[in-house]
């Protein structure tokens, strides 16, 4: 085994494999940092380039890229409040507030440190687990996945913000949204309203970008050019973040282990891991008061987990040829192209290849974190720039990020709809994380339940690991209840999550009523479907209707309190500007229908700079020209997309 490890190392550090690894790391930083791109997009694009390479070079290239996307994605999450990839959604909950406090460098320093350590430990875990992994993976089937998803849902309590009822209803909304699309179980299209776009369900990236990124853009544009950072000077530096990572080493280690296990179980997926880790950080913290407002532990937990996950995800791929994600399926193709047969051979006669993967992961994680650390301080300065200079560029990335995955016009509509929902939720004390959690877990739960029941019937519930997870669920709920009772007794009733300070019942009540109608309508529609197709939607909507009654009553109470307290003030002005800016965003797809996507985006940039940013002609021209070149190079040459062209002229076809 030692010989194989050394042999594996030699495969990676010899030329040209090392060169490919470094190239992969640079590309990975790009794929991670640009919202909407991801390790999966990178894998799909780079795979054909490995056809002529040997195994050492090919895997160094692919895994070098893949390893660092979840390190680089922190940049957008922390600095801009825009999730760089699906694996860094939770990072924005505390990373962005830290940037708003002028502590972006600290957040990045902590994130890169734990990403590196998490990534390396994930690789070490991969190396150590290779001989013993089989029984563990084989003991998890659909019943266990269902129960794990239910366990995941128990985190809703910790992520609900100020109102547990809103948190629960938000999670139900996420579950309901996950049910949109063609149901394989009942062979019916659910909530698609005859739309071809919705047949495959709502795509995660536009939903998440809408929920989290657009509200921040509305906020930034509405604050009359104020910078992201609300203080004038940087509060702390990268080294403070490194020290934070050292201080919270035990949390980082626990989240690393969580990341490895979530990654190892095929089907759970990378978009879940950061939420699991974040939820764990909140659940296990004694003082939760700063979560959602810039608690460094809220950055450390997801960032340690999302890098560690990759070592775990490699295990079932190389040991059983069972890829746990689409990225790993592409890696599996790379094995076949190299003439390697995943499975026992990679654990015996080709063990050196397996070790080369371990070394690649470890080296790429160190290299990626070191490079990002070196640039982090400079990059963090963008949080002190006037917001109007940032908004057009970020908007380009958000809109193109939403477009890249499917290249469908519906993605922009989803982005805008969820942008509005996210903004309203932010204004009205509705926590968004439970909704995302419900959305991610919904399909895992439905698959687990249906296939588990068909396969094992009621024997489902007597499986040992299922019983253990049920006990864990009960323990978690009891512990949460006891903690909340303790807090109540101590007079501290505030819970954790985003937007706990914002509670505008004037905005909330119409939203509550709309949701009530949505849940009632969804229930009525679901009742017309075959049992297999309607079961999960009803699991989401029926409890939601009950929660909504409490939500409406509580918001009515708040409304009375607010009316007694204050009248319209500056917040109404911000609200008006927010609505104004939202309409500008809506104009992008509308104008696209006339002049095409590329030109519409550039027109937005130019008009925004002139009318919101009050910029002069020269600056507007330079900025727009730079945007034109950037759009063209990134999205037409590097990662080519199918542009939506004007009906009157074509630029790209």
């Amino acid at each position, binding site marked *: 085994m030692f010989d194989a490890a050394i042999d594996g190392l030699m495969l990676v550090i010899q030329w040209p494999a090392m060169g490919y690894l470094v190239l992969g790391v640079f590309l990975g930083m790009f794929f991670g940092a640009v919202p909407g791109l991801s390790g999966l997009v990178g894998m799909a694009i780079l795979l054909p380039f490995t056809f002529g390479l040997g195994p050492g070079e090919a895997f160094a290239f692919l895994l070098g890229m893949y390893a660092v996307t979840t390190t680089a994605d922190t940049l957008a999450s922390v600095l801009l409040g825009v999730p760089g990839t699906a694996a860094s959604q939770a990072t924005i909950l505390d990373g962005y507030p830290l940037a708003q406090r002028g502590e972006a460098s600290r957040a990045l320093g902590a994130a890169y440190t734990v990403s590196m350590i998490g990534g390396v430990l994930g690789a070490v875990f991969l190396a150590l687990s290779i001989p013993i992994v089989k029984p563990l993976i084989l003991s998890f089937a659909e019943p266990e996945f269902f129960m794990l998803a239910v366990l995941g849902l128990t985190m809703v309590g910790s992520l609900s913000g100020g109102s547990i009822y809103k948190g629960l209803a938000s999670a139900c909304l996420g579950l309901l949204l996950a049910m949109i699309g063609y149901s394989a179980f009942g062979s019916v299209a659910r909530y698609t309203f005859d739309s071809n776009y919705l047949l495959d369900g709502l795509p995660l990236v536009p939903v998440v970008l809408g929920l989290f990124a657009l509200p921040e853009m509305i906020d930034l544009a509405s604050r009359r050019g104020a910078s992201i950072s609300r203080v004038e000077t940087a509060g702390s530096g990268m080294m403070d973040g490194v020290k934070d990572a050292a201080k919270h080493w035990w949390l980082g280690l626990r989240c690393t282990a969580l990341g490895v296990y979530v990654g190892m179980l095929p089907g759970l997926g990378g978009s879940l891991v950061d939420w699991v880790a974040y939820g764990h950080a909140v659940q296990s913290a004694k003082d939760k008061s700063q979560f959602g407002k810039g608690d460094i532990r809220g950055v450390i937990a997801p960032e340690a987990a999302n890098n560690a996950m990759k070592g775990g995800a490699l295990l079932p791929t190389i040991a059983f040829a069972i890829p746990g994600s689409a990225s790993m399926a592409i890696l599996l193709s790379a094995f076949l192209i190299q003439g390697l047969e995943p499975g026992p051979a990679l654990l015996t006669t080709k063990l050196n290849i397996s070790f080369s993967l371990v070394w690649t992961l470890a080296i790429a994680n160190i290299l990626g974190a070191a490079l990002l650390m070196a640039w982090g301080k400079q990059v963090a300065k963008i949080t002190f720039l006037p917001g109007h200079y940032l908004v057009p560029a970020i908007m380009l990335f958000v809109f193109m990020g939403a477009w890249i995955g499917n290249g469908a016009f519906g993605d922009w509509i989803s982005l805008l709809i969820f942008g509005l929902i996210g903004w309203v939720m932010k204004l009205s004390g509705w926590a968004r994380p439970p909704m995302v959690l419900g959305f991610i877990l919904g399909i895992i739960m439905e698959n687990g339940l249906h296939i588990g029941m068909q396969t094992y019937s009621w024997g489902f519930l007597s499986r040992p690991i299922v019983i253990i997870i049920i006990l864990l669920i009960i323990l978690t709920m009891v512990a949460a209840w006891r903690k909340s009772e303790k807090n109540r007794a101590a007079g501290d009733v505030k819970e954790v999550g985003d937007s706990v300070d914002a509670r505008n019942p004037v905005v909330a009540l119409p939203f509550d009523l709309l949701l009530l109608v949505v849940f009632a309508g969804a229930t009525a529609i679901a009742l017309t479907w075959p049992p297999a197709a309607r079961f999960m939607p009803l699991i989401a909507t029926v409890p939601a209707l009950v929660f909504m009654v409490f939500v409406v009553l509580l918001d009515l109470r708040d409304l009375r309190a607010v009316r007694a307290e204050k009248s319209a003030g500056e917040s109404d002005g911000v609200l008006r500007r927010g609505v104004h800016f939202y309409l500008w965003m809506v104009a992008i797809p509308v104008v696209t229908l006339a002049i095409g996507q590329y030109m519409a985006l550039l*027109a937005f940039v130019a008009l925004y700079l002139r009318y919101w940013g009050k910029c002069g002609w020269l600056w507007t021209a330079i900025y727009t020209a730079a945007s034109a070149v950037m759009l063209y190079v990134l999205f037409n040459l590097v990662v080519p997309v199918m542009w939506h062209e004007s009906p009157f002229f074509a630029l790209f076809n």
Partner: protein
Amino acid sequence: MQKIASTVLSSLVLGAGAIALSASPASAQFYKGKTLNVLINYGAGGNTDVQGRSVLRFMENYIAGKPRIVVRNMPGAGGVVATNYLGQAAKKNGSVIGVFTIAGMAELTQAKELRVSHKDLIFIGAIGQQQIAHIRKDVLDGGINNANDFLKVTKVFKTAGHAPTSSKDVSIRLTLKLLDMKHEHVTGFKGANSIRRAILQNGIQYTEDSLTGYYNGVQPLLIKPGVSVPLWHVGQPTKGGGLKHADTVAKEIPTFLDVYQAKHGKGKMPPADAWGTYLKLAQMRQVLRVIVTPKGVPKQAVADLRAAWMKTTKDAGYLAEYKKQNASDLVPLSGEDAQEVVDDLLNVKPSVQKYMQSLVVR
């Protein structure tokens, strides 16, 4: 207003300038200086995606004018989403084609999600691929070593597929019904890999896989370690309505018809509608992966693409790569032949269609 107009105009000029820098002069070749957008109707990393990207890498060298190729995955509803898009929404100017796994079963069972007919598509080429059924050996006390042992199984076993309307599910239901084998069908698995995991865990015992999946996934994971055993393959339909052994499948794996006749008697054929359904499934395997454009595309575009496909099927590099990826030789069809097969495939007797729909248990 004037300010808005001048701002818009300036941004348009800047944008157009950036594009103009890379523009090339027009030429007689249809695709010269153009972009060819390629839809793949399954997600990144799947068999359709990997095979599609692989064929495009070689085919782009043979398309006259060498267009720039942009690939877009458009998964959903068993390939139906992209098929609908190509037939209904894609521009018919030659700028969009599809590399699909054919959604034939959706059309044969008249699934209402499918809004276009495959008859409304022009076929550029196709790749055929066989399907192999396999079962865990321990379903029978003493073990199953071949199809004859399998016929001795009397206890109920679990089978797995992806959706009631998928061709895999229909094929499993049909073949096991014809052999009078007791089974419980579990559907809804997201991909072939999760079924393989379930077989390894003994939650599922039986399924079918494409040849690519069989050689690359099933063989290393289930066959070589002695967990499962192959039973039969679909077989190559013959003009007389029979089946012959496919060249790409190992000799020791019989066709389904061989196994059926081993059970019911030599020369005995299944009932007409059941056999009609089976032959439709077998025909579908002949055009499993297809390259298609919507109808209405300029003739020169179709001719250039068909010519490029035929040259690709003779490219030694592509043939070697296909063999490496799929562990079997390429079985190509020209666009014209594929069109003929599909037209025949969709020409179904009402009684066969009714029988087929009876196999779709929702």
